[in-house]
């Protein structure tokens, strides 16, 4: 027997209380003078003895109640049904969607049944099913029927293969015992490449049972929506070209279809049909005999909700400090993906920042301590903050947000625009749009800039004198960008450059990315409370629609040999019952057994008996 919270067993020391009280009260019986004690002495001995027995019984009941209570709080459980130490065979069955080829999973079930039956005598047998996540379908038990029954219930899902997860779950189930892991799988190469090498504890051998190569399969692996229409990438996993039909549907209505001949490998199929502004786009390839799950892919056409952007300027609504920036963000007119609002520094509050994707801080006059704290909390919780230097920005604020040690100082006035800047982190997502043309940003002439020295963040762009021009720092779940010059045509001519608008858009999109809800997710990342299968779902938390697609990597049916599979497994240094895995296991077992509930019931029964006995003794 083990305990989930053994510290509570210390509560059993409380049994000393009734024992002490029992004896203390016996000692405390006062002496009472009485005229004649003959009649008292003649009390039948049986009655006194019965009384004594009853007292001891009461004491025993009280002690039992306390012990049971301590035991209940310690949450006892029997680990692996009391069969600790016996070797274990875990059969891990691949339930990824590549196994959903017709007849494939039945084959896997038969192989798994055979593996269960062939487990050496004396082994406990458990069952793990896995795709991206592994689940212990049957805990190791001497009775193999449990594993067989769990196997009969197992079905394929829509996840991708992850061998590492399967091995980790099997190792947790085996614990510190010796054992075998039998992996029943189609030996997809992608199952290793995605999750890296797996490990097996010492004393545990791994064997694979191959359910055979997949036949020819077609899969839609990507869907791109451009101004010209939709384009789908269809992959033919076989070696022979195949003819098939690719259909484009919106909300179930076929908009377009194309009969195509698909060579081995990826083919892009384009559709010219104009797309509506809203709806669920679905591209499906006709693939009889292939894996059904990857034959279609979804895309949400509904325009994303515009990002809420807040400018913090000293003038609030009437301030001119954000003129260029605001114009740049609203350049798209009614279709602008941004909603812009101005705020005075004094107006910063949690309510004002609620739902805001990014805050652009341009002027700091009137920005109090509490407003700064609220900005910091906003960033910690996933918000994006751009601090643009300028004549009306307090340099100390930069130090506050880009970390201790930075000493921003305002440069001496003057200069003839000799400063230029260049991107140092060209692969940063911020500069993806410029597609290698980030050099065009270098046209900007900076007459003045702020020195940001020793900043605790990543320098994305630098001035020609070596000083940081754009610094990024992550704080909590959010990000802070510091632009070391002004964005309102005062210290530079950036607003008048053609790169200004795309730069500002990218900065704001990048900062607001954390706050922008995902519109597409893979099955493994399906939000909680949502059935993890491809299609359109409504996210319960937000009420927003999003599409779920299968992981395209799973459609790559390239295979490993059994030896290649095994060569990816490295022995782990510590036995499987590493401290990290055991509590998870223990909590699970305790939750299954829930003996504490019966113990509390027993406490109640004992207390009732105690009160009944106590009352009848009184």
């Amino acid at each position, binding site marked *: 027997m083990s305990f989930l919270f053994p510290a509570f067993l210390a509560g059993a020391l409380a049994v000393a209380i009734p024992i002490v009280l029992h004896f203390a009260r016996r000692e405390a*019986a*006062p*002496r*009472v*003078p*009485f*005229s*004649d*004690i*003959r*009649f*008292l*002495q*003649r*009390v*039948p001995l049986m*009655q*006194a003895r019965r*009384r004594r027995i009853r007292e001891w019984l009461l004491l025993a009941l009280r002690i039992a109640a306390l012990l049971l209570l301590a035991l209940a709080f310690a949450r006892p459980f029997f680990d692996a049904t009391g069969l600790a130490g016996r070797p274990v065979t875990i059969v891990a069955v691949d339930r990824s969607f590549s196994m959903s080829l017709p007849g494939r999973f039945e084959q896997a079930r038969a192989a798994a049944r055979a593996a269960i039956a062939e487990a050496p005598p004396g082994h406990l047998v458990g069952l793990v099913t896995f795709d991206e996540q592994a689940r212990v379908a049957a805990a190791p038990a001497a009775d193999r029927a449990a594993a067989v029954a769990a196997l009969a219930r197992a079905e394929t899902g829509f996840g991708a293969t992850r061998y590492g997860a399967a091995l980790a779950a099997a190792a947790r189930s085996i614990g510190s015992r010796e054992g075998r892991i039998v992996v029943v799988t189609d030996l997809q190469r992608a199952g290793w490449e995605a999750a890296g090498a797996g490990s097996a504890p010492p004393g545990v051998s791994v064997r694979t049972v191959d359910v055979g190569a997949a036949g020819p399969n077609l899969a839609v692996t990507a869907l791109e929506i451009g101004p010209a229409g939709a384009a789908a990438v269809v992959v033919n996993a076989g070696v022979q070209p195949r003819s098939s039909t690719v259909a484009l549907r919106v909300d179930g209505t076929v908009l377009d279809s194309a009969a195509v001949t698909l060579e081995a490998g990826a083919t892009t199929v384009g559709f010219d049909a104009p797309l509506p502004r809203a709806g669920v786009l679905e591209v499906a390839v006709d693939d009889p005999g292939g894996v059904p799950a990857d034959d279609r892919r979804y895309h949400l056409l509904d325009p994303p909700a515009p990002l809420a952007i807040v400018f913090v300027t000293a003038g609030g609504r009437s301030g001119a400090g954000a003129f260029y920036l605001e114009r740049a963000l609203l350049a798209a007119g009614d279709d602008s993906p941004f909603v812009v609002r101005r705020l005075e520094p004094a107006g910063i509050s949690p309510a004002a920042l609620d739902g805001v994707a990014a805050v652009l801080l341009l002027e700091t006059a009137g920005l109090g301590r509490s407003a700064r704290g609220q900005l910091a909390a906003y960033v910690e919780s996933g918000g994006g903050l751009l601090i643009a230097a300028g004549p009306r920005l307090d340099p100390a604020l930069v130090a506050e947000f880009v970390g201790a040690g930075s000493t921003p100082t305002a440069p001496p006035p003057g200069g003839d625009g000799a400063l230029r800047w260049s991107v140092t982190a060209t692969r940063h997502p911020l500069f993806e749009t410029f597609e290698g043309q980030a050099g065009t940003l270098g046209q900007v002439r900076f007459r003045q800039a702020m020195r940001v020295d020793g900043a605790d963040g990543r320098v994305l762009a630098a001035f020609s004198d070596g000083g940081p021009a754009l610094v990024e720092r992550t704080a909590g779940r959010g990000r802070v960008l510091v632009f070391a010059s002004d964005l309102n045509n005062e210290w530079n001519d950036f607003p008048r450059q053609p790169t200004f608008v795309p730069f500002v858009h990218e900065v704001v999109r990048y900062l607001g990315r954390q706050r922008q809800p995902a519109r597409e997710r893979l099955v493994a990342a399906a939000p909680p409370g949502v059935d993890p299968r491809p299609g359109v779902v409504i996210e319960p938390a937000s009420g927003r629609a999003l599409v779920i697609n299968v992981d395209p990597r799973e459609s790559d049916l390239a295979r490993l040999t059994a030896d290649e599979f095994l060569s990816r497994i490295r022995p782990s240094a510590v036995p499987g019952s590493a401290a990290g895995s055991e509590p998870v296991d223990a909590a699970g077992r305790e939750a299954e057994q829930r003996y504490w509930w019966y113990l509390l019931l027993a406490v109640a029964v004992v207390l009732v008996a105690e009160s009944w006995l106590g009352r009848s003794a*009184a």
Partner: protein
Amino acid sequence: MATAPRANELRHLDPAVIGRIGSLELRARTIVEGFLIGLHRSPYQGFSVEFSEYRQYMPGDDTSLIDWKLYARTDRHYVKKFEEETNLDCHLLLDVSGSMGYGSAGVTKQEYGTYLAASIAYLMNRQRDAVGLLAFDEQVVRHVPASARPGHLRRVLLTLDSLASGRGSDVSKPLNRLAEALSRRGLVVLISDLLDEPEHVVRGLRHLRFRGADVIVFQLLDRAELTFPFERPARFRDLETDDEVAAVPPLVRAHYLRELRTLLALYRRELRLAGIDYCLVDTSQPLDLALLAYLSARSRRH
């Protein structure tokens, strides 16, 4: 015809009130006078045949006692009062054993017994009876022979006042001794808790009765002895033997009361059979009940 004494008169007979009065003589007088006021219409008034004095009629007096000749002469109502002839030897036997020292509230049984003995002595003296005292525990502690001489009452009361609590009790011994010493028929008043071997006690009393004495037995028991009201477990210590017994009162109460009832029933039955007046006295109750019992027995003597 007797009427119940009124409450304010009974107040004088409450043992707790009596206990606060200074000397024993005063206590005895208070008790007796209070008692007699309460009894002023009592038939016991008439057991004397010798005229004593006239007294002005008070409302409530028996109209049959009004001297109508005197009324004719004086135009006032007078009632005749009579006085008892002294012809009785009365022996007070007071138990001063250890168990008599028990008292759960106010007075102990011995104090109560002392008041009772003193009251009876006072009453007897008033009636010119010869009164004697014998205090005992395991043996006779003090003995004052019966006498009706003036000043004898004072000697009896002083003796009563000086009695200390004794040890174990043996009622039969003084009874037998008194029975042997009894020269003529008299009244024997035994004041004791009778927590002794009942056979011995009854045998001794029968002995006395056999010698021709009228016997009144006052068995004094404390309220706690009668009801055993204790609740908490305790070690009960015997006042006579210092033995201890641990008991849980709620558990032993029923048994104790049953045993006590058996003992009392035995005394009641055996003493009645022997022609002995038996009076169980709760020491928390006023003394008048005991005095009434005494007077009742005294009246039957005539």
